């Protein structure tokens, strides 16, 4: 669906995008993840033909972006960062304007607009001036605008930035629904967003791709065949610790807190399967009370930090 090959773009001496290549197939929801200034927005601007690359090739649904930018624009819906809109227009007026430029035939225009208004939750807002809308509603108008021509691909630049937590959840749900039918690229620097909305993540740093894959697998690969558990154990501390010391399946453990007679530990193991069960048996055999047993999943935060800051082990 989207093929990008060795894409390059510089602004003066700053190489904003420096040899980016990737392929995205139909139906994927891909998250561009990277620190601010990593080149996410510039890459998106080139995909949407707003900027012309210095080098490289972009092909969208089989259409070459350099040779036929208007053909590419037909297939893409784009929501730029912070949803820029004409503040003096009404919501419906604006959507009609976009529909006219997008050449939606008059016969189906009303039908299309009705569907979009419903899908984006804009009922009751149609006569409001865009300038008076909250940030969340502006984002919805921006989303509606990007889908007016029913494009195969949606490019969303930081769709949830600047929203409050409730609005973030609403917009994410919207994107999830859209993602069931369309190919979506979205950029963000909020990590949990990628884990909840995307089925693939591209980590971009200094204009290059430094990580690519399923968010969960990417996180798991960082752990390198080790598992750790967070546990809370009730029992005499000396006894507990000597039992942990003696356990053959644990490589190390550390205590971080003691409260109400419970001790909180992090247990590390070199085994990957059945460690939780073994910890449970250990507690039962020694007559300890296990009040918490939680496997620690390496978060994308750690993957991100290690890839973009060059830290070794996360």
């Amino acid at each position, binding site marked *: 669906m989207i093929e990008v090959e060795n894409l390059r773009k510089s602004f003066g001496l700053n190489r904003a995008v420096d040899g980016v290549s990737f392929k995205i197939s139909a139906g994927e929801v891909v998250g561009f993840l990277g620190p601010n200034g990593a080149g996410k927005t510039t890459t998106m601007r080139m995909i949407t033909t707003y900027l012309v690359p210095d080098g490289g090739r972009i092909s969208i649904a089989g259409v070459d972006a350099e040779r036929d930018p208007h053909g590419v624009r037909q297939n893409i819906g784009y929501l730029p960062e912070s949803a820029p809109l*004409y503040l003096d227009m009404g919501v419906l007026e604006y959507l009609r304007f976009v529909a006219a430029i997008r050449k939606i035939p008059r016969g189906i225009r009303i039908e299309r607009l009705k569907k979009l208004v419903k899908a984006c939750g804009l009922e009751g807002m149609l006569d409001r001036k865009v300038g008076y809308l909250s940030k969340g509603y502006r984002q919805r108008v921006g989303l509606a605008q990007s889908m007016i021509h029913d494009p195969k691909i949606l490019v969303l630049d930081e769709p949830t930035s600047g929203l409050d937590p409730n609005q973030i959840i609403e917009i994410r749900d919207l994107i999830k629904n859209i993602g069931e039918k369309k190919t979506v690229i979205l950029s963000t620097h909020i990590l949990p967003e990628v884990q909840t909305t995307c089925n693939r993540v591209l980590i971009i740093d200094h204009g290059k791709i430094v990580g690519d894959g399923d968010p969960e697998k990417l996180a798991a690969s960082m752990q390198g065949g080790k598992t750790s558990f967070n546990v809370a154990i009730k029992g005499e501390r000396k006894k507990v610790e000597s039992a942990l010391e003696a356990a053959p399946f644990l490589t190390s453990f550390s205590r971080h807190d003691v409260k109400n007679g419970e001790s909180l530990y992090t247990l590390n193991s070199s085994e990957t399967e059945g460690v939780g069960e073994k910890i449970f048996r250990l507690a039962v055999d020694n007559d300890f009370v296990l009040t918490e047993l939680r496997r620690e999943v390496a978060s994308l935060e750690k993957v991100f930090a290690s890839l973009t800051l060059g830290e070794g082990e996360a």
Partner: protein
Amino acid sequence: MRNCLIIASKEFRSYFRTPIAFVFLSVFLLVMGWMFFWVGNPPFFKRGIVEMRSFFGSLPFVFLFFIPAISMRMWSEEKKLGTLETLLTMPIREGEVVVGKFLAGFGLLVVSFVLTLPIPIMLSMIGDPDFGPIWGGYIGSIFLGAAYLAIGLFASGLTENQIVAFILGWAVSLLLFLIGYLQLQGLLPASLEEIAHHLSLYTHFQSIQRGVLDSRDVVYYLSVIVFFLFLNARTVKHRR
């Protein structure tokens, strides 16, 4: 062409959605009414002649401030808000947007002229004016206004700051205007007289205003308009 009209209608309406149109039209009519009735020696009521010379004599100067004011926001606001990005990733050409925006400004210009028509109507009721110079004045003003507009639009495309766009549009228009004004006053060195006469917005305005529509003047204004609209499309296209 269809796209031009969509943009033109959106931009024209946005003049009326914001206070711009109302402020522009009311202040323009106030200033021009004052120019018509009170400027000139003797002023209109003591003159005893039904004509609009003081009106068309002052119009090029009034436009110098008014036209950049209606063109300054057209591109700079798109850049500042970021709407340029949404607009130019839709299937529309830069040139079509340029022409659309120009047509919208031109529409407002036409409205402002229509609103001054009560002056010639009144003149024809109280006397027997020579309509040659009056129509000449209107036609010349429309061409002059359109040329200022193209220059102002070009200036707006260079910056995301409306104040900068205004001053730039004003300065370029003033320069093209002033060289002719100075030439007609005999204030330019002989070597520059010829060029100034051909290039200036003012000399051609004076020529049309006399009531004779010379094709050279029309071609001149059309080339100025097309030249700046073309530059405008180029600068918008070569963003960064």
